[in-house]
């Protein structure tokens, strides 16, 4: 396949087939033989889909051999074709690079969202079906040396699991995990126990806010280590502020559930980022008008959603289609500026 991807064939394809890449030109043909074969993505085969706790799934994927192995703590973008539409979400890999190298398998641990547009489909994934993944991304990694404290909340446990498994092979300094979740909703507890039995340098405490108080009360015990934090926005903010005040080295990965303003009647403002140029937009007017008010030149035509001239690649955030009231996805997709309003902070490709 690599021959197809080389620059010469892409040049040829651009000149004569008007496709940006040769792979793009032949993609639908290859898909007849290799389902989910896609230009710019890796393929992975579903080997296990298993409910491991209340509304929590463990999914194991066999990656294709050219997939570059991840480092413990990294994440991937997982893309499914849901009713004809490609939808992408980001998940941290909860298994070690070692396992990926030897068995070609990675594991994701996913909390299901009830009304989600994505996670409910994960539960229905068939074993032996194909999905697309990106190469591993992210720089949330275990420090080379020194004592470490992990702070995890909810499904923020996943990168730490990967790091601990990797640790079985690379003996290092003490690691302590502080894991917050609602009472009795801690994930993969059995696995943590078995890890702490096997790893002499690893200990952990399970806490929940209702019985053990806020995380801030516990922080003073861990001044003599490096901190790694993974969890929702507020959780990480609290710890980060404390670490800054006490000059503690911290690295973090946080997932913010986007603050949506779904009810249009109430005026609200959001940040718009157009390839680095930032401005504030409200949720009342179409985006096109607000781009123009901010002197950002974008092509447009009819202003009523017919001509697609105003189309733009949204990279992040949620917009509402003013015609149907439908909310967009979180990830990358094409939207029409003239009939879209913001309902969260958004980012566009310039």
């Amino acid at each position, binding site marked *: 396949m690599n021959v197809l991807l080389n620059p010469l064939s892409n040049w040829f394809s651009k*000149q*004569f*087939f*008007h*496709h*940006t890449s040769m792979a*793009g*030109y*032949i*993609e*639908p*043909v290859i*898909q*007849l033989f290799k389902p989910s074969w896609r*230009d*710019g993505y890796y393929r992975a085969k579903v080997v296990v889909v298993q409910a491991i706790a209340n509304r929590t799934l463990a999914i194991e994927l066999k990656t294709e051999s050219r997939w570059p192995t991840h480092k413990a703590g990294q994440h991937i973008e997982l893309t499914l*074709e849901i*009713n*004809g*539409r*490609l*939808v992408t979400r980001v998940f941290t890999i909860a298994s070690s690079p070692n396992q990926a190298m030897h068995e070609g398998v990675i594991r994701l641990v996913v909390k299901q969202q009830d009304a989600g547009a994505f996670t409910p489909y994960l539960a229905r994934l068939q074993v032996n079906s194909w999905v697309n993944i990106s190469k591993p991304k992210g720089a949330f990694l275990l420090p080379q040396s020194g004592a470490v404290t992990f702070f995890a909340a909810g499904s923020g446990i996943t990168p730490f699991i990967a790091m601990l498994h990797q640790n079985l092979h690379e003996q290092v300094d003490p690691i302590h995990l502080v894991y917050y979740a609602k009472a009795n909703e801690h994930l993969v507890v059995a696995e943590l126990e078995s890890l702490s039995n096997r790893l002499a340098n690893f200990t952990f405490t399970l806490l929940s806010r209702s019985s053990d108080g806020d995380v801030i009360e516990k922080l003073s015990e861990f001044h003599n280590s490096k901190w790694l934090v993974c969890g929702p926005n507020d959780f990480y903010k609290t710890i980060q502020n404390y670490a800054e005040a006490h000059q503690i080295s911290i690295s973090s990965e946080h997932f913010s559930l986007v603050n949506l303003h779904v009810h249009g009647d109430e005026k609200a403002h959001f940040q718009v980022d157009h390839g680095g140029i930032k401005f504030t937009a409200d949720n009342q007017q179409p985006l096109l008008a607000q781009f123009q008010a901010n002197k950002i030149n974008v*092509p447009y*035509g*009819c202003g*009523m959603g*017919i*001509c*697609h*001239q105003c*189309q733009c*690649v949204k990279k992040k955030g949620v917009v509402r289609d003013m015609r149907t009231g439908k909310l967009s996805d979180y990830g*990358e*997709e*094409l939207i029409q500026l003239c009939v879209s309003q913001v309902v969260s902070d958004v980012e566009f490709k310039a």
Partner: protein
Amino acid sequence: MAKVGEQDANYIRRVIVMQRILEWSGRILLVLGFITPWLWLVGVLALATAKILDNMEIGHNVMHGQYDWMNDKHINSKAYEWDIACDGKSWNRVHNFEHHTYTNIIGKDRDFGYGLLRLSNDFRWRVKNLWQFITYLNLSVLFQWGVAYHELAAERVFFGKKKENRDYKVPHSELKTRFFSKGARQLIKDYLIFPLLAGPFFLWVLVGNLIANLLRNLWTSTIIFCGHFTGDVKTFSEKECENETKGQWYYRQALGSSNIKGSKWFHVLTGHLSFQIEHHLFPDMPAKRYREIAPKVQKVFREHGIQYNTGSFFKQYGSVVKRILRYSLP
């Protein structure tokens, strides 16, 4: 629109596969023409069909944004570029914006007669209209070039007085470069590279490509004329359309186009522009769905006493020819 989904995604991928197979078997058969000319002939037909599919069912519809919801980076209106001389971006501006927004408003929709033909009493008669049927034939033969030149003509890039205070969204220099580079690539590909690859069968391939392109041009031009210029199609003046409501817009779309009856294959080859009325009402609905909604549209038209302009291919084509001839005289 709620039903649009997996079926439509699979459908367009299938059509693309078919297009690729036809194109490549066509190109190979052209070279094998030395075994027997029949192979060459089949090759020409396969290549022409591939080019028609690329132009109509894939290119036209994908560039209308009908498949943008798939979120596929190769099958969407921003990325798709078709195998004809016209630069896709230019077509998108003129066609998607002007033609579909200002359908048949004389003075705003330059598709009406392409500035070459007089097709209604909205234009003054000139002597050149006497032989406009021949102009029409020429336009059909060179249709892809006509489409390619469309925006440049309108913007008066080469000839004519430039219009005052028009807001030029794209600089003329860019229009020119894109026009020449896309056009040149097409010429080099079909009339130089592929013939050269065939070595001693250079001429076979060259002529084959020429005929395939010609067939495609004639076909698309004919379908488009049948969709827009049959006898009963109405035109509108700018005055009438000031401050029009959404409802009036639909009404104008309805009266401004006409359908052609035919078999399933016929519809696919026209890119479902045989459902021109439905296309004008819902330009970004996946085109195969027009077949489903056509009966409903027709019913609504009947209820409101609006004429639903449809007929067999020959009837519609006859009516186009009549219209062109009729308006060649004062």
